[in-house]
């Protein structure tokens, strides 16, 4: 649909702007000149009118198609997605409540028993070793 519109538009542009085109070559002056011109080339007028009306129809059709595409709502798909998201949230909630029921935990450290300010560092050095650069090509869409 869009391709048809584009072709017609391109044809219109070509008709109007290609040098030597009969429809444009004569109509450079004032209104009377244009009117005389179009009277001379009146054979083209019906064709032009037809094309322009087709163009209008096509653009109206495109708008209504876009509207109908927007309006096309799939209830089954939406329901499935809504169900999956809700189920994941429900699982997170239930597991977090369940984990709150277990408060007995092994301690891996003794940080509560460190003597305050007892840390005494006698060696504190950072040495640079090497550098590595990785490059990945960017995708150009």
């Amino acid at each position: 649909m869009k391709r048809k519109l584009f072709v017609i538009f391109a044809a219109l542009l070509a008709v109007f702007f290609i040098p030597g085109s009969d429809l444009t070559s004569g109509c450079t002056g004032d209104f009377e000149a244009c009117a005389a011109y179009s009277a001379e080339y009146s054979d083209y007028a019906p064709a032009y009118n037809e094309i322009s009306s087709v163009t209008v129809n096509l653009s109206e059709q495109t708008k209504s198609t876009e509207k109908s595409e927007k309006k096309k709502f799939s209830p089954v798909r939406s329901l499935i997605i809504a169900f999956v998201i809700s189920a994941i949230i429900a699982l997170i909630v239930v597991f977090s409540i369940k984990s709150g029921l277990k408060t007995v935990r092994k301690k891996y450290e003794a940080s509560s028993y460190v003597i305050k300010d007892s840390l005494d560092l006698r060696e504190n050095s950072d040495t640079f070793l090497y550098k590595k650069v990785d490059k990945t090509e960017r995708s150009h869409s």
Partner: protein
Amino acid sequence: MSELLEYKCPACSGKLEFNSGTQSMKCPFCESEFDIEAVQEFNHAVETPDENNMNWDTSAGGEWASGEAENMSVYHCQSCGAQIVTDNTTAASSCPYCDSPIVMTGSLSGDLKPDYVIPFKLDKEAAKSALDKYIKSKKLVPAVFKQKNHIDEIKGVYVPMWLFDAKADARIIFKAKKERSWNDDDYNYVETSYYSAVRAGTLGFENVPVDGSTKMDPEIMESIEPYDFKDAVDFKTAYLSGYLADRYDVSAEDSVSRANERIENSTKAIFEDTVKGYDSVSTESANISLDDGKGKYALYPVWILNTSWDGNKYTFAMNGQTGKFVGNLPIDTGAAIRLFSAITAIGTAVIFGISYLMSR
């Protein structure tokens, strides 16, 4: 005979070779290049470290004074084997660990006398109230469990603990990374810089507790930590009046490995915190030794309730000094399923409704 010197690659541990073109050390395996001084420092730092040296003086506890032990009675549980000690004025009828009847077997003799005791600060009413509040605050606990947990049977027990003091002397090497990224029209770039961070020094620990009773789950005792040793007093039998005390059956020597593990992990974590300004830090090697390591024997106060439900045993414990309460609770599977279904149903309706309205 001359000694052959080898330098290891910090990236892949391959043997480095001197590259005369760049006047630096190059790894033929991963093709990384390093400054000579940096390689010498790195290899010196990671030279095979000594084994961890963790020695303890475990001569904790004292001897009973004349007449002291005669005031104490020992009860034996024939069901779980627990040996409960209390003073002669306190009647003990059931085991605090398995709730079975206990029988008096004799007086306390031959045991070590505790060095310290932290007396109970919270009474039985406080413990019952804490237990009640704890269970009621939890969701998805079976209603029957909430009702039938015989809260009155909560008991105050002094649990034997080995307390360890030590000065950790550590030398730890960390591998640290910094990342920088940028891009141009054609490529994305990530530059990673690698560093070796050496930290060596000492860190002091005091009163690191280890459970001295096999009857008391060590995870429960660790969960109700910490205890504040400032409230500890020299042991006197009078503190046991009205309470039970568990007899230790794990020696100080057998407890040191647990203390070593906790001290080692804490030392590594604290030293790692001093390595700042990097995007990631990992431990390359650690050598930790303990100086002035010694143990003490103390009794720590705990309110305990053992209960069973649906064929499983549940233990609740409250720190008798700070009131911290722990205990694993059962889950009502039916209630969990109902909650899951309700959230799913409501969520589905809401999300579906929103997507329908947005489509109009």
